[in-house]
């Protein structure tokens, strides 16, 4: 195999014009002077600017602003002077991970950081008060802080945080600072504006794909189209003379990259490059074969146990009526708006990367491993993500960028995936099927319920060491005993026949709750219908043991006016769920034309995330969850033919657009006492609420997604 074609050393800057920007940009605009680090979470400048350190990643979900609110409130900072800035992964690593976990997924950004970032804010506040007390020679207890000013109540003396920061930074960090009670919160719970908006309105926000560095070259990549295939050879000479082309390189054993002055030149040459692949026996896999594989799991004798209560067989035997239905959801690509990309430079045994990542630690580790260098020899520049949805937790693109850069030492290389590469080499939402069986007694009460899942396992694919006795706990998300809303059903069995394929699978906004909730909430609707009961009343009756689920269900029903008359031809559907620490429910109002055009007139969606950091951002996540969830419901499907993905771009993988987006009314009902996630829970109830409304409108149960295959389309 040709390793590299040594082309001349023509050298010019990728850009010498307006767009070139120097290293060390910060979020937001860099502060000239460094301030004092008061504790580890806040850096306070003489002009009172407070820079809150952020270890998680901002991908649109608002975590950056939310985390800053948590710190700033406990710090009693003046919110108008608060900024946010990422912690560099290598600095976190070098400082024994004082800023904690950097991974940003599973709606954990806030809820898994809340305790220590609040404590960090409170500690800094105590240090500032102590510094003031020492200056005034008074007791700290006589001083109080508010809006970035410490006041001595007896004398009325005041000092700004900017005046105290240097002295405060030298004090010991209190280990157990006193946190505010919820009643004392001033910034937490407020719908303050995001900190990262202005740059996104003018083109000034630099995403990873926008990085331009002196001497930078650009790379386009082609990966084996067949999953599990290998690169055999390529004919570099055929493209060597094309404009801008510098190198043609193998990347790992399954991809080839063209490196050129411009990405457009690299992509153009890559398309002209003759490449031979070895399908390695994987070239026959198809969606039809995968469907048969999964169907075999629905009645298999062996299955991993999710949860069990009572005696399923006895419960079914005692039933007056049995209801059975099989549901299924396909593979789904994330299709973040910004395609996968990473810029890497390998020089003098050190690696530097510029990356959009949901996990700064994982990017650091991937770059070190691919570069063959120590963790301490890697520098990671984190940039805001143009979408994540779980995709950017994986670091395949980071690894590739470093592997390419290592072959072109000294030059920064920006690797950008085409949309087609992005869509066909994803870690897809796993394909699953569910056979649902239930018994009803003569009064329509549920005597028994069996949910049998069959399908691919994320944990088995990504981290088999996290399997528990061969069982993937993530497969049951939303259905564990402490999550499931229908624990009043006396006889219950939930199990999973794992049926894996060689299609890469991964975390996809809301997995596996979003597949499971379609199965469960549509099937509960089927049971309500079989029992001749109202879908809301039927659910309420099953929630005796789940008061928090019930409260959210009731909140949504009330706001939606459940049971009240609707315009002719409009019908309602309802769904509820618990996942990622939050309770959610939704009502959809839908009409369906004779031809199958589905108009979603209105969505009402309720959430109980315990405490709310920023209601505006919670509402934004609820709206976004409907856009993402309904895109999947109406259109979303990635199909396998000849061992590879068929859909390559947004023409064949359609996304919901403005005209199809329903009105969404958010009902936020925080019951307090816990911190739940908000980025993902709601996506689970979006499809089943609409599906149940479609049933109410048409009498038709759609059990296999997406709707486009079942004669329904957005009006």
């Amino acid at each position, binding site marked *: 195999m040709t390793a590299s074609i040594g082309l001349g050393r023509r050298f010019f800057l990728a850009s010498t014009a307006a767009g070139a920007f120097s290293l060390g940009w910060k979020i937001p605009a860099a502060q000239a002077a460094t301030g004092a680090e008061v504790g580890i979470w806040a850096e306070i400048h003489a002009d009172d600017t407070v820079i809150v350190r952020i270890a998680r990643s901002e991908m649109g979900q608002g975590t950056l602003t939310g985390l800053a609110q948590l710190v700033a409130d406990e710090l009693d900072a003046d919110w108008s002077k608060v900024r946010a800035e990422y912690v560099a992964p290598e600095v976190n690593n070098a400082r024994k991970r004082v800023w904690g976990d950097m991974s940003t997924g599973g709606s954990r950004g806030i809820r898994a950081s809340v305790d220590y970032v609040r404590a960090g804010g409170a500690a800094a506040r105590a240090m500032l008060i102590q510094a003031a007390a020492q200056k005034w020679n008074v007791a700290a207890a006589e001083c109080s802080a508010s809006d970035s000013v410490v006041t001595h109540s007896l004398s009325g003396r005041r000092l700004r945080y900017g005046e105290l920061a240097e002295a405060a930074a030298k004090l010991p960090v209190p280990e157990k600072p006193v946190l505010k009670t919820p009643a004392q919160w001033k910034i937490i719970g407020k719908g303050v504006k995001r900190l990262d908006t202005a740059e996104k309105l003018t083109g000034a926000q630099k995403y990873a794909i926008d990085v331009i560095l002196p001497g930078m070259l650009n790379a386009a990549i082609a990966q084996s189209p067949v999953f599990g295939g290998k690169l055999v050879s390529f004919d570099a000479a055929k493209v060597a003379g094309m404009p801008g082309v510098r190198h043609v390189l193998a990347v790992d054993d399954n991809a080839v990259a063209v490196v050129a002055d411009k990405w457009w030149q690299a992509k153009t040459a890559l398309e002209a490059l003759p490449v031979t692949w070895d399908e390695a026996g994987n070239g026959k896999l198809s969606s039809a074969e995968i469907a048969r594989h999964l169907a075999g799991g629905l009645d298999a004798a062996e299955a991993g146990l999710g949860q069990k209560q009572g005696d399923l067989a006895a419960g079914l035997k005692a039933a007056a009526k049995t209801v059975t239905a099989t549901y299924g959801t396909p593979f789904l690509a994330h299709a973040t708006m910004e395609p996968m990309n990473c810029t890497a430079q390998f020089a003098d045994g050190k690696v530097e990367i510029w990356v959009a990542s949901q996990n700064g630690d994982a990017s650091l580790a991937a770059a070190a491993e691919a570069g063959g260098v120590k963790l301490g020899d890697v520098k990671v520049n984190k940039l805001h993500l*143009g979408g994540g949805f779980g995709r950017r937790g994986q670091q395949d693109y980071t690894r590739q960028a470093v592997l390419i850069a290592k072959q072109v030492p000294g030059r920064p290389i920006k690797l950008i995936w085409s949309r087609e590469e992005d869509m066909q080499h994803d870690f897809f939402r796993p394909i699953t099927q569910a056979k649902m069986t239930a018994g009803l007694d003569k009064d329509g009460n549920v005597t028994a319920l069996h949910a049998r899942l069959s399908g691919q396992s994320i944990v088995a694919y990504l981290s088999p060491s996290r399997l528990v006795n061969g069982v993937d706990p993530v497969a049951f998300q939303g259905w564990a005993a402490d999550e499931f809303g229908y624990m009043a059903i006396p006889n219950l069995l939930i199990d999973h026949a794992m049926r894996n394929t060689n299609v890469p699978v991964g975390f996809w906004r809301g997995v596996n709750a979003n597949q499971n909730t379609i199965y469960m909430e549509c099937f509960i609707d089927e049971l309500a219908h079989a029992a001749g009961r109202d879908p809301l009343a039927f659910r309420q009756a099953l929630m005796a043991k789940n008061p928090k689920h019930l409260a959210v269900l009731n909140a949504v029903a009330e706001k939606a006016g459940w049971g009240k008359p609707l315009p002719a031809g409009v019908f309602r559907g309802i769904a509820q769920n618990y996942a990622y620490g939050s309770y959610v429910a939704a009502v959809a109002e839908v009409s369906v034309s004779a031809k199958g055009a589905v108009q979603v007139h209105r969505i009402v969606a309720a959430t109980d995330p315990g405490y709310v950091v920023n209601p505006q951002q919670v509402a934004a996540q609820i709206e*976004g969850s409907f856009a993402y969830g309904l895109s999947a419901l109406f259109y979303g499907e990635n199909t396998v033919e000849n061992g590879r993905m068929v859909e390559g771009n947004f023409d064949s993988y359609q996304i919901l657009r403005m005209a199809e987006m329903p009105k969404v009314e958010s009902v936020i009902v925080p019951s307090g006492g816990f911190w739940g996630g908000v980025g993902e829970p709601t996506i689970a109830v979006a499809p089943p609420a609409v599906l149940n409304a479609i049933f109410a409108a048409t009498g038709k149960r759609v059990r296999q997604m997406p709707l486009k295959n079942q004669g329904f389309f957005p009006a």
Partner: protein
Amino acid sequence: MCNDGGHGMITLTINGKQHQVDAPDDTPLLWVLREWIGMTGTKFGCGVAQCGACSVHVDGEVQRSCQIHVGDVGSAKITTIEGLSPDGSHPVQRAWLEHDVPQCGYCQSGQIMAAAALLAQKPRPSDADIDEAMTNICRCGTYNRVRAAIHTAADLAGKV
């Protein structure tokens, strides 16, 4: 090997300034903006006219720059997100700020350019006008805020 059609210096008028670029005629304007000129506010999302992330104004009309060959631009005036206003004060930008529209923000250059072109044509767009004009994809699902912000931008523009 070079199937790059015509070749030579091309003069482009972008945001009121002239730029000389040495790019083959069939290079998409999107990549000329991003790579030859270094203006990265205009985004790549699909390359096939589906997503609208690459939207710019060509003589005041919104167009998808991934579909325009740079050799076809001629003397047309190009406006990109960087040139929509000198300081982010275009009514659309102000309205976007007021509604905190962006989530990840990656689609927003395109959304803003599409909205600005719509308002230039129809100062008081109806919801139906918005549905028709705003076909850009937003994966984060900011559509309802985009809609509300367009109505606000119409109000703001009406006030000056």
